[in-house]
């Protein structure tokens, strides 16, 4: 029997699904949730903070629910992913996100985490202006092996190419340990173009890996 695959743009009532998507994507083939470890919050607190951040719906960064699309298989949520074109908002995605983190995690948690910032900065892979940014692509376990990551990314690229016909490049970031994700993205034409590694091995207590890869694809 063939499966019926449909896509829809996320709405406010999809926020819980997006929160789960961000957290699962964060784990990146590990059991570590960096936001919990860095800012010393429980999983439940983190979910609550993410919900509030997403409700703001500030476009052009990963905590914007309306930048997500959801793929359904036979009417059931199966995969979720976000995208935006860097530089189309007044400020960079990094600054928009930083302001949201400052606002919703609060200055006390931000300050406590400050000793880690220099090491975390070593992992920074800059988002190039004018490129399509693909983030938090997640396929639920029971729907894996069906090529859904490829389908949802293709859909996002089509949507954004229609809106921005001059788009030439899509970028995404993964942690180096996430070999299955790397393989899946390579299969659909992405290749690694940059790698950053932190010199601070202690970061392994906080993050799934201390190396991050930037992958790109011409679109």
């Amino acid at each position, binding site marked *: 029997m063939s499966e019926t695959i449909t896509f829809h743009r996320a709405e406010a009532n999809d926020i819980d699904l997006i929160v789960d998507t961000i957290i699962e994507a964060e784990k990146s083939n590990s059991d570590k949730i960096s936001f919990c470890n860095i800012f010393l919050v429980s999983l439940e607190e983190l979910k609550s903070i993410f919900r509030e951040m997403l409700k*703001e719906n500030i476009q052009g960064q990963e905590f914007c629910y309306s930048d997500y699309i959801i793929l359904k298989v036979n009417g059931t949520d199966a995969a979720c992913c976000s995208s935006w074109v860097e530089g189309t908002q007044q400020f*960079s995605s990094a600054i928009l996100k930083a*302001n949201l983190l400052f606002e*919703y995690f609060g200055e006390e948690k931000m*300050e406590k985490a400050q000793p880690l910032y220099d090491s*975390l900065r070593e992992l920074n892979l*800059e988002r190039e202006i004018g490129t399509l940014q693909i983030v938090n692509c997640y396929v639920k376990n029971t729907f894996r092996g069906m090529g859904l990551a490829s389908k949802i990314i293709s859909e996002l690229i089509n949507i954004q190419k229609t809106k921005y016909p001059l788009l030439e490049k899509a970028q995404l970031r993964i942690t180096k340990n996430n070999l299955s994700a790397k393989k899946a993205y390579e299969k659909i034409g992405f290749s690694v173009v940059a790698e950053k590694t932190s010199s601070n091995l202690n970061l392994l207590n906080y993050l799934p890996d201390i190396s991050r890869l930037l992958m790109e694809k011409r679109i």
Partner: protein
Amino acid sequence: MEKEKVFIEVQVIFNDVFSDENIIITENSSPSDIEAWDSLQHIVLLLTIEKKFNIKFHSSETQDLNSVKLICNRVYEKLISKTTIVN
């Protein structure tokens, strides 16, 4: 404190936070002009400015603090408001 003095103090904070004496800010400076002004440095900037001026940015304000001009204006408003309350 006068508005010009706020700007001068903010200049010192930028040099300190970015560990670069050569960074010269203008009112129009924004993260797109200063390469090192990334998400984490932005958070450190806000924390340092709060401490230096003994002010608090409220949650509803942070989304607007994306350039030197906007930051200085907001700091100045907060200092004026503090002075008014004391007086």
